[in-house]
């Protein structure tokens, strides 16, 4: 181990996050590989090690014998300071080698608030931030993850983005990179060839021009790059490799357990939800596959918990068969099975009763909208009846805490809708009085609101966000309407939401402000410990980024949106139709009841059909 590091580690919090050496890490001989890849997660070890995508791609990229893919996370503030002071550059966990010497850095960017950390990690590695300042082929700096559905704000920094699921396309990029390295290609030569791979977006091969009013006039591809970059997906999830020997962290992380992915995509189509649209089409794994992968993973890790991941677990058709199969293995071994993202229905309650024999944790509902009218408008198919029915069973069964999540500022929301939130809390309280067996323990109802953020590639991508003042007015309206002492109201600060809105809907001109925030010390902005609203607002001011233009302006139907050249499968016309349905306060049937021909099925190959029916 580096002598300097050895002196620092005993002084920092949780040093095991910075050492590597965990069980199941992949070690290779660096002299026997052609490409050394730093797989970078722009957040802490605890968050990154909990990310199933990282775990999957670590495995698939290392399956290439000529690649050694190692993990890199962002150090927490104390370690960051110590590294700066000692002059230790960013290093990879497996080998401890400085990533500045690697052939390539690949970032997984899942959320906008990680942008400054990407820049910071590049800087810690001693790599120039902008692609224009990196004339050589190596190191290739690229990224994937949800942020790629609107890559524009980060476009000047990254050489290449992959759009969609990475299991195949990442390895195609790495194979081409090896050829380029061996053949001594120029960076431009490589990027032009890479842009021909489906799912690869090379921002420098697109010229963006703007109208005088600031909207996009045209996005023009050059050197043979496609006019639209089409997302990559894996058609057959039963055949794609899944890591059943994931790394077992030697220190506590956020999700410290085996995770199984039931399906990709979501049949629900909530109109505010980006994930529900950009991960389509629907593709499920077979229960046999999941049970096998679950058992193998448990045996290879020694974990004592397994969890089922998806956007809407209750929508997995064979949930009973899957749970039975897993419980058969788990129960005699005291392994816990948990199912997040259940819907408020009867079946969910039955299964929860079965799973949570000992502890009765709280019930959580993502209700989103305060009235049925508004829930219909955003296509959130949860009724008051569903919630109350589930609560009545739960209260009778001994549960006594309920959490309700809402968004304020959804399109078409009125004061009446907001007051409906308080009304529902009262109904639940009443429901508890009627159904609870033991009232001595009391009941605790918690309402949380956050500020709606319009997201690219969702039906609300044209929407404006409400102002900070308006959000506060709505918060205060709700506060004054909540009177019962068993009901607690927490509201999230809207300041982060405002910055997120600018970044999610941003174009390339926002990049300067991201860099300016980083220059003023911004990193780990997803953490309230480090986020500074003032720093962001000042950077927008300095760089001439008009917050109102990006966050508070409604876009026109025919406007070219900055991310229109990224094709996630769902048609823009479908998104617009969904938005119009919102203004009519009308539900759209979920995919299982009626296929809306959203367009995502075109991505499927090999005769595989969307799992919509």
């Amino acid at each position: 181990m580096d002598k300097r590091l050895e002196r620092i580690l005993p002084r920092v919090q949780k040093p095991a996050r910075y050492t590597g050496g965990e069980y199941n890490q992949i070690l290779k001989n660096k002299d026997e590989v052609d490409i050394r890849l730093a797989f970078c997660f722009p957040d802490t070890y605890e968050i990154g090690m909990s990310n199933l995508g990282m775990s999957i791609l670590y495995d698939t990229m290392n399956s290439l014998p000529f690649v050694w893919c190692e993990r890199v996370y962002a150090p927490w503030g104390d370690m960051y300071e110590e590294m700066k002071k000692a002059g230790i550059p960013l290093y990879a966990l497996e080998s401890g080698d400085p990533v500045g010497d690697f052939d390539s850095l690949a970032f997984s960017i899942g959320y906008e608030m990680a942008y400054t950390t990407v820049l910071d990690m590049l800087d810690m590695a001693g790599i120039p931030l902008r692609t224009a300042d990196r004339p050589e082929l190596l190191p290739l700096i690229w990224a994937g993850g949800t942020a790629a559905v609107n890559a524009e704000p980060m476009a000047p920094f990254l050489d290449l983005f992959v759009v969609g699921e990475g299991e195949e396309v990442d390895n195609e990029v790495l194979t081409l990179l090896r050829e380029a390295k061996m053949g001594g290609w120029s960076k431009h030569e490589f990027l032009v060839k890479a842009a021909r791979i489906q799912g690869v977006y090379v921002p420098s091969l697109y010229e963006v021009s703007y109208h005088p009013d600031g909207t996009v006039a045209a996005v023009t591809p050059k050197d043979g790059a496609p006019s639209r970059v089409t997302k990559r997906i894996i058609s057959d999830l039963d055949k794609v490799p899944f890591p059943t020997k994931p790394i077992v962290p030697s220190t506590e992380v956020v999700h410290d357990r085996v995770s199984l992915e039931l399906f990709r995509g979501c049949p629900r189509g909530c109109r505010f939800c980006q994930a529900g649209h950009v991960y389509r089409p629907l593709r499920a794994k077979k229960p046999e596959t999941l049970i096998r992968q679950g058992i193998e993973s448990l045996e290879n890790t020694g974990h004592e918990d397994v969890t089922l991941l998806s956007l809407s677990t209750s929508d997995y058709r064979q949930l009973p068969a899957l749970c039975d199969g897993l419980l058969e293995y788990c129960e005699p071994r005291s392994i816990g099975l948990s199912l997040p993202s259940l819907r408020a229905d009867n079946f969910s309650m039955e299964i929860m009763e079965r799973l949570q024999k000992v502890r009765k944790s709280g019930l959580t509902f993502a209700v989103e909208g305060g009235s049925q009218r508004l829930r219909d408008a955003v296509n959130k198919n949860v009724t008051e009846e569903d919630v109350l029915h589930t609560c009545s069973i739960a209260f009778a069964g001994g549960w006594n805490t309920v959490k309700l999540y809402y968004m304020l500022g959804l399109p078409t929301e009125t004061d009446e809708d907001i007051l409906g939130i308080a009304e529902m809390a009262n109904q639940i309280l009443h429901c508890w009085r009627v159904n609870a067996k033991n009232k001595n323990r009391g009941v605790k109802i918690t309402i949380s609101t956050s500020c709606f953020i319009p997201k690219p590639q969702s039906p609300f991508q044209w929407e404006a966000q409400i102002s900070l003042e308006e959000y506060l007015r709505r918060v205060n309206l709700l506060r004054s309407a909540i009177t019962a002492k068993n009901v607690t109201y927490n509201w999230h600060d809207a300041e982060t939401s405002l910055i997120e809105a600018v970044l999610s809907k941003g174009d390339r001109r926002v990049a300067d402000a991201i860099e300016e925030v980083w220059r003023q010390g911004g990193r780990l902005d997803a953490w309230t410990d480090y986020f500074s609203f003032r720093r962001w607002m000042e950077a927008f001011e300095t760089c001439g980024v008009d917050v109102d233009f990006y966050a508070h302006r409604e876009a026109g139907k025919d406007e070219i949106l900055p991310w229109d050249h990224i094709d996630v499968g769902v048609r823009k016309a479908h998104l617009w139709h969904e938005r119009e349905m919102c203004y009519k306060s009308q539900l759209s049937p979920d995919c299982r009841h009626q296929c809306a021909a959203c367009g995502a099925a075109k991505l499927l190959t090999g005769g595989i059909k969307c799992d919509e029916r």
Partner: protein
Amino acid sequence: MSDKLRLRFEKTGRAVYISHLDLMHTMQRAFNRAGYHLKYSEGFNPHPQIAIALPLSVGTASLCELMDFKLKEEPELAALPERLTAVMPEGIRVTEAYEFTRKVAELKWLEIRGVFEYDEREPAEMAEKLREFYARDAIVITKKTKRGMGETDIRPGIREISFTPGEKAVDITTTLSAQEPTINPELLAEALRQLRPELAPDFAKFTRIETFDADMQVYR
């Protein structure tokens, strides 16, 4: 019969940064991976019945850690070290597994090797001065106790100590009281910082070598 089992293991290299609490968790998972079944406590929140003697400070290595555990089955003890080591994170190596007869309370002394690194100072000169310093009859330092900050004489807890100059460092071999009182080897450097700052090393690190009872017989 499977209730009084003890493991002797090494914790070196990158594993020295695994904290005591995390190590318990790591052990539990390693047992699961190796296909052994730890006994769990009864009650609302069952936890595996394992106990690691004398928690090790983060950053300190050891060749002689001891962990008591209970198994549901009766294992073939001879095979256990190899099977467990095969599924351990880097730096943890199980060297022995046996049924124990002696209580942890009988463990009295720890043999420890350490290194005091001096970046700018002359090791031979430092070694000489360290010998002098540790020859004192009493070394009273201020340290955190259960009742806030207090004065403690660490000298009675140092049974033997010797210094050998090396490359930019002084090597230390010492035997310290393991419990009642517990003398953490870190205190050897801390005493210098408090009483003779000019001798305080730029960096100190330690490795536990062996466990002994009150009569200086090897403890198992």
